[in-house]
């Protein structure tokens, strides 16, 4: 049996080693670096305690980014799930070519946020503005991503377009797993379609909702690629008397703090806070939904 142990070790080792070197070690290095004066250049780091953590909360851009990231996450959880759910009803209906629609709605999800960001930048800045001028619609004549009031919503629309088809497929799988007999019984009892959706389908899909809300939450909270190429954080606006970037979400704020200003340690401290907030939100969400699943 000793030989078996050696082979097992050799089988486990490559992945475990990479995992250790790429995630575990940098993770703990990161927590340590967040409490130093790391600037990306110096090799000897000095301990500064929690200075980097307290510093970020007096920084208008960080407070603003934190708030809009929460707003963006909430908007997306609602929009993506409603759109995905309605599309899943459509994709399981008797509509001709429903498999074709399913496949089509899924396409945006295959393409990276970087590429989609440029495409939608063109849509917002050129296509919509041009259409607004042609049709005399004042609201469209200034780009939605150039205005601080609309830029978060514009990003949410793109994210919904990208992600709803994926969420739809999870709902479709869930709808198909509902036993036919349940729906037929409700049908015989005379429940109309709306009642059946709310009273029978949705409660039976509780575990799917837990997954989709978790996915949309983490996906929007960590948004970076789309943010970088669609708006690059802009436009500028005033917040707490300082100029801030109106669509700079947290992930981008972390990246820019390090990249633009070489403030590696403060950026790392922000990343640690980002991690803690994300974990707390995800756990609370899963806990609440699991409890609902049991009740349902």
């Amino acid at each position, binding site marked *: 049996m000793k030989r078996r142990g050696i082979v097992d070790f050799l089988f486990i080792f490559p992945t475990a080693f990479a995992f250790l070197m790429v995630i575990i070690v940098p993770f703990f290095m990161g927590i340590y670096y967040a409490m130093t004066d790391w600037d990306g250049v110096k090799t000897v780091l000095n301990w500064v305690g929690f200075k980097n953590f307290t510093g970020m909360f007096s920084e208008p851009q960080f407070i603003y980014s934190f708030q809009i990231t929460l707003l963006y996450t909430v908007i997306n959880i609602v929009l993506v799930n409603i759109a995905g759910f309605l599309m899943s009803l459509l994709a399981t209906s008797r509509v001709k070519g429903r498999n074709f629609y399913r496949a089509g709605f899924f396409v*945006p999800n295959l393409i990276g946020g970087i590429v989609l960001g440029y495409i939608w930048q063109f849509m917002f800045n050129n296509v919509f503005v041009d259409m607004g001028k042609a049709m005399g619609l004042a609201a469209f004549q200034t780009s939605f991503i150039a205005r601080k009031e609309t830029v978060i919503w514009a990003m949410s629309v793109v994210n919904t377009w990208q992600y709803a088809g994926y969420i739809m497929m999870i709902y479709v799988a869930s709808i198909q797993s509902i036993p036919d007999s349940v729906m037929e019984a409700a049908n015989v009892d005379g429940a109309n379609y709306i009642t059946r959706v709310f009273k029978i389908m949705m409660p039976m899909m509780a575990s799917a909702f837990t997954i989709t809300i978790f996915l949309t939450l983490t996906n929007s909270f960590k948004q970076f690629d789309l943010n970088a190429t669609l708006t690059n954080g802009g436009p500028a606006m005033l917040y707490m008397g300082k100029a801030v970037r109106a669509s700079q979400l947290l992930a981008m704020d972390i990246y820019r703090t390090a990249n633009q200003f070489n403030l590696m340690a403060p950026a790392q401290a922000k990343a640690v806070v980002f991690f803690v907030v994300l974990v707390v939100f995800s756990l609370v969400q899963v806990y609440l939904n699991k409890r609902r699943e049991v009740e349902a």
Partner: protein
Amino acid sequence: MSTKVKTRHQPHASLGERRGAGLYVLEIVAILIFILFMMPFVLVIINSSKTAKEIINSPVALPEYWGQIWTNVVTIFNNPSTDYLGAFIDSTIITVLSLTVITLFSAMCAWALVRNKTKWSTVIFMFFVAAMVIPFQVVMFPLVRWFKIMGDFIRLPLLGTYHGITFAYLGFGASMTIFIFHGFIKGVPLELEEAATIDGCSQTRTFFEIVIPLLQPTIVTVLILNGIWIWNDYLLPLLVLGSAGAVQTIPLAVTAFAGSYLKQWDLILTSTLLAMIPIIVLYLFAQKYIIKGMVEGAIK
């Protein structure tokens, strides 16, 4: 949840169940949503076939001459500052290498963890699963420094190289891949492997000749999930390869290109089109597997 996406499904008591006006309206709604969904792609194709001046005149009009798209493609390929063809080759190499390494090593690891029931294997598995909550942002900066230190130590640079980024992808892909394999292998009966052992088959041979063939459907899921992630990934290549390194990926090339041709939408849109084509073509051929793979990956 152990649902499978059925491709052909007789819908029960669903929307538009009574044929007639309702279903008719629903079909129109479906077509409208579909057009709306495809509009950005249609506009990319239309505008990739225009000159910069035509786009400024009207971004929605049809192009005067569709052949312009070849001129735009050639301009992009001949552009001296970004090597588009090179990025395509690099992206392919990195994706193929990473997928091979992640799939093979994670399957080996997951199998050993399931079959070797000790408290250590449980602890290691728990570590892999727990790490799924760690966002990339919290490890990315230390990772670059750590890769530099390790590279100096082994006298083989990890930053800016194929093997460096492949190693990184193995680390980042491990958690989810092992989780998926682990779940599947748990359900595979031991008898087959035991019979092979009794017949004198070594552990390694048992794995490659008996377990791997059984894993095939799961391997497809894992390949698709990781493949789409790696092909589209931006931040990890940006940090590990750098935006001006010798090795470049497609997302890096697209950003470099768009950055150097500010607002030249004819070329930027053509470059996004070129970036999308490989995935769209793959999707046309393997649509069923891709949807199934991505949905099952999320559900598990």
